[in-house]
């Protein structure tokens, strides 16, 4: 099944998406998720990808993709244009996360956000015992080479969503590696044990 060829967090995300909906995938890479949603869930999908080569490879497989920087480009869509906006493993690299999430909640009825959980126990222990910034398989960077400019713990994210008057509809903590197809869902002590958090967020109903 095609789903198994996809990153584990993307498998979880795609299971949340209603068939036939309109989806915007930010930082869609080579379009694996979009292609899957299109063929298996009859979704009308659009991707935004800044890298020219990746965007071109999406278009070459027949996907609708814009080669752009999504931080500015999301502003152009009409309100509630999408049923879902997906921001997978990118939030930690966004310069103005609050502005971005607010815009996404305008153009999409629901927003799915996934990011590496910086409060994983290994990171906590590493900082506590070695006194150095956490570095491991899913965060394999030095402080001076990392593209991740935001350090997000799942707890921080929940607090942030409450502060901007949005609500978390669904939340899953997973344990998998960055590019792994397999993983598992964590129920016990997720803030300590999850490598990634995935959240389904929507603007709070009046």
């Amino acid at each position: 099944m095609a789903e198994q060829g996809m990153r584990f967090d993307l498998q979880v995300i795609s299971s949340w998406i209603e068939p036939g909906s309109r989806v915007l995938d930010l930082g869609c890479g080579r379009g694996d998720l979009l292609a899957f949603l299109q063929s298996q869930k009859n979704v009308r999908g659009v991707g935004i990808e800044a890298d020219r080569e990746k965007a071109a490879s999406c278009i070459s497989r027949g996907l609708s993709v814009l080669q752009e920087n999504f931080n500015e480009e999301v502003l152009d869509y009409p309100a509630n244009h999408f049923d879902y906006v997906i921001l997978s493993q990118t939030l930690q690299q966004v310069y103005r996360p609050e502005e971005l999430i607010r815009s996404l909640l305008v153009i999409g009825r629901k927003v799915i956000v996934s990011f590496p959980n910086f409060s994983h126990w290994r990171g906590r222990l590493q900082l506590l015992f070695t006194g150095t910034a956490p570095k491991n398989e899913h965060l394999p960077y030095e402080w001076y080479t990392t593209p991740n400019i935001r350090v997000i713990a799942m707890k921080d994210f929940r607090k942030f969503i409450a502060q901007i008057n949005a609500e978390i509809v669904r939340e899953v903590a997973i344990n998998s590696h960055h590019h792994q197809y397999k993983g598992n869902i964590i129920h016990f002590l997720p803030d300590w044990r999850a490598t990634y958090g995935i959240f389904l967020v929507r603007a709070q109903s009046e």
Partner: protein
Amino acid sequence: MQIRVGEVDESGRKYFTFGAHGPGLELDCGSRLGPVTLAYETYGRLSAARDNAILILHAFTGDSHVASHPGLPGAAALPGWWETMVGPGKAIDTDRYYVICTNILGSCRGSTGPCSLNPATKAPYGLAFPVVTIGDMVRAQKALIDHLEISKLLAVIGGSVGGMQALQWCVSYPHRVRAAIPLATTMRHSAQAIAFNEIARQAIMADPKWNMGEYGDTPPELGLAVARMIGHVTYLSDQAMRRKFGRRLQGRQGFSFHFESDFQVESYLHHQGTKFVRRFDANSLLYLTKAADYFDLTGSDQGSLGALADADIRFLVISFTSDWLYPTYQSREMVHALKREGLDVSFCEIEADCGHDAFLLENERLANMVRGFLGGVANNG
């Protein structure tokens, strides 16, 4: 409208004439034109459902010969201007699609233009030819598509002024088009683009041989060659010119200390100018530059891209990094306008150092995107 369809001529062209009797073609300037002949070429086979037709729109000084006709004798078998993209098994696959390419109204490559005979005077129109617009060109093309009994085109594809026509098709006949690929183009000319066109026009009109457009067999060759040289510079780029010519001298060891051509780039431009004079009409160039300058699909009224909200058209917009005639920001503006209307649009800027002309050159990424996009449109019936 009266219809006359000629046979395929030795260069592979067919001809479609309409408006010989009756009111003729209604033009944006308010007057009417008839009869109107369009030279066109077709490739591949129209499906029984008549749903695999792609209309390719040529740029400025192009013609209907987009690709070779290997089965035909003579000039018809020569490579076309987009041979790399159009043909059996190529990105625009003529085994799968029925490809139509027509010479634009106002040109001199088989379609009606200022060098055609004015039926009222039996002499070439010259300046009596009405100023035509991109909208008029597309209106004439639509008469051909009606004549071919194609109710909906699978795609309209064009680069540069051809891209303008592709966009105009979507605006004028949104329900007759399923997809559009505007390449290296713009929603409207910038002041810079108009400026270069005006220099080209002035070069022609300043040539005494131009004679208010009545030059008969002695055309303003010098003016036309200069006009082409100017155009050609805008199609290249700083990088491409450095790579191709640098400051290399042409056939000499040192400077001539005369006003002969010293540099390779000079003799290249002269060659381009001379070559062009043999195949293009000076008055046509005046009319076509004017049409491109008048083109403007911005704004929010009926005739703009912003009025396309209800159209079910998929777009693939492509720009090239070194194109300074229609830079990427102009393609992005187009993409923004389409997005704001909620239209399905894809966009990619291709890295290429050859300037505006890049869309005509072989490019694997361009070919893959066009192939994949068309496949996606064709499969989603």
